[in-house]
């Protein structure tokens, strides 16, 4: 006599979601970034850092310019605006002044922020506008195919410096320091714990906070300079990064395949633009 096989108890399946899914626009993934690009790692650090702050997500806006990093605004599940090339900071300025209860974060690349947007970043830092700027520095214009940037180290080859860059690059933390930024840090995307911590500190900071994130561009920068794969660049960061908190920003410039000094360089407090404008401090205003 045979018996019907026992009916297997239904397996309860939980719908699986990545822990960061609510922070990202799932319906926009996969993203456009190349394998081993550093931007995704920085975004990952950012959403984790944001989650660990007490800032309500609906009170955070991300503003980007144009370029590979300019696409960040389109992937974070927050109010986000993708401006024209170089203009993320003035848009963020208008938004931060209209909505003082919001945390406005500019997430963009070195070409966007420091070259075409250079006038805006220096003036926003000078005013101590209440925004956080995360600058992904991959030493090159990625989106347009690997042209020389104002951050490209001397000697490095790009599509517009085929025999090697002859220009002096910006030392971005030094530039921001000179303009009066209240928080300045630099980390590579290898330093995910420290980068996340720095992002948390910047998000909680009142005033103009700035983080330079050194990130690999294997597709263009590494390939053209025969530096290997993205993994090789990360290994380079591992072997050549030196943590010097409080370093004199004048000394943190980056040469071609030379030491990268990382750390928190500046962390000071002073009244923001709006506090001075509203006469809420002794820093001026009415």
């Amino acid at each position, binding site marked *: 006599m045979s018996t019907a096989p026992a009916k297997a108890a239904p397996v309860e399946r939980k719908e699986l979601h990545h822990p960061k899914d609510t922070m990202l*626009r799932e*319906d*926009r993934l996969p993203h456009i970034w190349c394998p081993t690009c550093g931007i995704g790692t920085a975004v990952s650090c950012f959403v984790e850092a944001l989650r660990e702050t007490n800032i309500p*997500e*609906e*009170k955070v*806006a991300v*503003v980007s310019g144009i370029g590979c990093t300019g696409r960040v*605004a*389109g992937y974070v*599940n*927050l*109010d*986000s*605006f*993708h*401006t*024209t090339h*170089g*203009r993320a*900071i*003035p*848009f*963020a*300025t*208008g*938004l*931060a*002044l*209209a*909505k003082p*209860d*919001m945390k406005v974060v500019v997430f963009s690349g070195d070409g966007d922020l420091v070259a075409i947007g250079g*006038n*805006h970043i*220096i*003036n926003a830092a000078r005013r101590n506008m209440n925004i956080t700027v995360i600058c992904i520095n991959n030493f090159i214009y990625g989106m347009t195919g690997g042209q020389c940037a104002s951050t490209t180290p001397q000697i490095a080859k790009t599509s517009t410096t085929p025999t090697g860059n002859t220009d002096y690059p910006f030392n971005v933390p030094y530039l921001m320091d000179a303009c009066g930024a209240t928080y300045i840090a630099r980390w590579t995307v290898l330093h995910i714990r420290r980068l996340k911590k720095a992002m948390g500190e910047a998000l909680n900071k009142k005033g103009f906070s700035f983080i330079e994130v050194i990130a690999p561009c294997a597709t263009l920068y590494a390939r053209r300079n025969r530096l290997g794969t993205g993994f090789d660049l990360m290994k380079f960061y591992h072997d050549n990064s030196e943590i010097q908190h409080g370093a004199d920003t004048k000394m943190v410039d980056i040469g071609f395949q030379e030491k990268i000094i990382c750390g928190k360089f500046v962390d000071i407090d002073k009244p923001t*633009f*709006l506090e001075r*404008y*509203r006469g809420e401090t002794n820093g001026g205003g*009415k």
Partner: protein
Amino acid sequence: MSEQAVLTGEHFMTGDEAAAEGGLAAGCRFFGGYPITPATEVTEVMAKRLPGVGGVFIQMEDEMASMNTLLGAAWGGMKSMTSTSGPGFSLMMENLGLGIITETPCVLVNVQRGGPSTGLPTLVGQQDMMQAKWGSHGDYEIIALAPSSPQEAFDFTIHAFNFSEQYRLPVLLMMDESVGHMFEKVVIPKAEDIKLVPRRITKDKPADYLPFKPDDDLVPPMIEFGEGYRVHITGLTHDEKGYPVINAEAQQPLVRRLCEKITKNADKIYMYDERELDDAEVVVISYGITARIAQQVVNECRAEGKKVGHLRLITCWPFPEPIVRKLADRIKGFVVPEINLGQMSLEVERVAGRGIPTICVPNAGGEVHNPEDIHAVIREVLK
């Protein structure tokens, strides 16, 4: 907030000052600007007045930044405004386009001076009229108003804000140096008598809201950042959700709608002033300061028994085609004086066709027309 936003009463002020007061009366509480002659006085009035009415003034580092702060402030829920002149207007073209594609309401005052380039900083021009329509890259439609007096600078700035909210786009007040620096009586009504169009805020909940899904009039309702809608707004071609879509299937309906929300509502937007058109054989078409000289010439012609009328454009863009076409069917010709070498006259000619002459009375700038120059052309057309 301790001061009056609406300075109800009679004043003696310039067009520049009146434009600033018009902005405040319209509810503008954010001004991002950069000094430039002959528009600086708009900026200065806003710098002085905004803190007292709970607003924010910020002097930006350049005009590209100024224009972008307006967009940021607008998405933060504020009515925002800037002022400039030719060289700054050129710099604002980049982010005028961003305002168009992201459908961001704001108002830009251009106090026109003579160009090209640095040109005549302190002297009059009307040479940016085509730039207003075509200056930013890509296809778009714009709304541009031209005041002929300080009173109209006040009134039309309010209209500009109302149009910007109704149709969700940057609206241009195309003033000129003469009107901007002219002192005249300006009557500011009571606040409750000023009709304001509120922002078209969506009634949808965040889960249902599509930022670029238009209403029947082709204009999508808006939101304000920081209210939990988690929108993505981009200068890239996008779908109704606001997400970038880089193909012809997304481009075609988006760009057509951006244009059609103006062209299909144009009958509700056109503003012009008709003077003695009923029996006119020749019609002078003008705008801004030039309309005041033109009206004097028309009055002289009428005194001489000549059948001359005057169509004064208030909305230069959208260009009021129906009235011009109607007139073209029955008159002998159009005479178009303007302080440029022929800009709006090209538009008149396009609409009027080749059946009748459209004659520009050109003036390269630096001074207003000599009435006799306009008179001479009218006599020629009447022959």
